[in-house]
């Protein structure tokens, strides 16, 4: 293992063009890095593949939400109109899957949307208002028109000087050490 300074979060470098950061990301991926990220003001098309990232897990939470919602809709209408206070309307069955279908449908969508919305924030570990990156002066520009690659210290490949040189070889500018 390499010597690691616990107070270092990682090293960062900036790029000016999306094409440059894209090709640099491919090289970081090929070098076998695990804990690293590319910061940009918009999602760069195809960067997921260039970084070798797996597919997002948000759809699983959406499905979970949707199934929960559908079951909730079924139970809600059955319990309220058929079990707890059976309502006689036109001599029809107290509950059937047909008449409250709009309710079940809307509950499915509502809960699936909750699964998606909260799932996205949970998977992204947000809200998180304190992060070492926010102390970096050049980080602010990544939400405007600059791009940044961050190699994190917790990766087993991380070595301060080597990683700095690696970023330099990728064509990165303003190479900076991020402290916790």
């Amino acid at each position, binding site marked *: 293992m390499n010597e690691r300074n616990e107070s270092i979060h990682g090293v960062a470098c900036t790029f000016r063009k999306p094409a440059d950061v894209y090709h640099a990301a491919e090289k970081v991926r090929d070098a076998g890095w695990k804990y690293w990220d590319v910061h940009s003001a*918009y999602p760069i098309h195809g960067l*997921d593949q260039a970084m070798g990232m797996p597919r997002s897990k948000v759809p699983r939470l959406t499905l979970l939400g949707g199934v929960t919602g559908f079951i909730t809709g079924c139970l809600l209408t059955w319990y309220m109109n058929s079990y707890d206070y059976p309502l006689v309307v036109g001599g029809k069955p107290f509950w059937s899957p047909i008449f409250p279908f709009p309710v079940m449908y809307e509950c499915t969508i*509502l809960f699936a949307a909750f699964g998606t919305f909260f799932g996205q924030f949970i998977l992204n570990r947000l809200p998180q208002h304190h992060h070492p990156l926010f102390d970096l002066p050049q980080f602010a520009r990544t939400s405007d028109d600059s791009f940044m690659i961050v190699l994190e210290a917790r990766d087993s490949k991380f070595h301060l000087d080597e990683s700095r040189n690696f970023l330099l070889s990728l064509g990165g500018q303003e190479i900076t050490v991020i402290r916790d």
Partner: protein
Amino acid sequence: MAHAPDHSSERPAILDKVNPAELPRAKLILNDRSFHWITDKVCGIVEEPTPLWWKVLFTVALFVASFTGAGLLYLVSTGTGTWGLRSPIGWGWAIVNFVFWVGIGHAGTLISAILCLLRQKWRTSINRAAEAMTIFAVMCAGIFPLFHVGRVWFAWWLFPLPNQNGIWPQFRSPLEWDVFAVSTYFTVSTLFWYMGMVPDFGTIRDRATTWWRKAFYSVLAMGWRGGNRQWSNMEMAYLLLAGLSTPLVLSVHTIVSFDFAVSNVPGWHTTIFPPYFVAGAIFSGFAMVLTLMLPLRAIYRLHDVINQYHIDNMCKIILATGTMVGYAYGTEFFIAAYSGNSYEKFAFINRAFGQYAWAYWIMVSCNVITPQLFWFKKIRENHSLVWIICLFVNVGMWFERFVITVTSLANDYLPSSWGYYSPTIVDIFTFFGTFGFFSVLFLLFVRFFPLLPMAELKMVSPHSDIHNH
């Protein structure tokens, strides 16, 4: 053919003579604007000192909104009898205004969700404002059924919450379906809108120079860092919410139309209502988007990001949906004639030539005739005219709901129980004020939130192309 490679025998010779044509693609962002220009333009709206026009309009909007406040205060302290509702017309302006405002909202979801699934990149310039419009329009819509229940302090009985009577909502009623549809619609639209804004809040936060602005937008941005691992989840979530909003928006106006179609009143009890209502909703909503965006485009000089291509597209959608609505009016007449049902036949002849014929012909001229002007390029390029036509569409769509609601109730089966509905001053105050209420919210949105989605605009900019050096 001398220059042809060896395998020329495998390919038809004609290919060597054909120069593949460059397909012209409409530019979404004119003048080759940079990422930084987009950031400056959109953040500039939030960062600049409050302009005078904004203060004036905001004051006027607050004043107009107070009419709704006054109308509702009088209604609650006196009773729903102060509205013009009399037997046999139990649904008057309240439901008309409700359907009108909900319909307006639909274009926002169409732009943000359906056009997203259809990969219509031009939506990015207008989707944020259109989504805001959706949310505020649904808030305006909600006022009417909420107060129409009479004793508004019992309105929570509409929701499946335990109450002291031990009675639950009755799920066979389309009105109860509506409660679920509209509240789900409001919630999901708000989540979708907010989630799309998080990265843009991050941009405003990163540029903030004052303490309060930094704090305000930091909270809203939730610590967004724009790492691609975050973007990947965000994009997936955005796509999924678009996929969820699409069946949702179609179901909302379908269920609104069920309020009418499930009853046995002549002129209401028809299967055409769901598609007809959805087309009408999109029609009116796009007219409202243009009504709002054309002045904003002029004030903030957004001509490079909302260009003629965007306006053309919206005009064409208005033309298409307006024609669908006109077709539906015709179909209604045909089916009434073909049904052999004398009440149904009477309902439609009465609409066109009866005591509300004036309203019917306002509806037809505004909804069917005026949008046909959008066939002409010259008219689509004349933005003042586009704005005026959109106002006509808004008026026409309000009258459509009025015609549907009132004519059928005023003259149904028994001539002995026919009536004539007119609104009272309380009705008029309440409805007039909702335009102020809507404007107050929309002006606050324009002033404090990112008006255009910066991240999405950057995504469709030619500068984002990684193959373009």
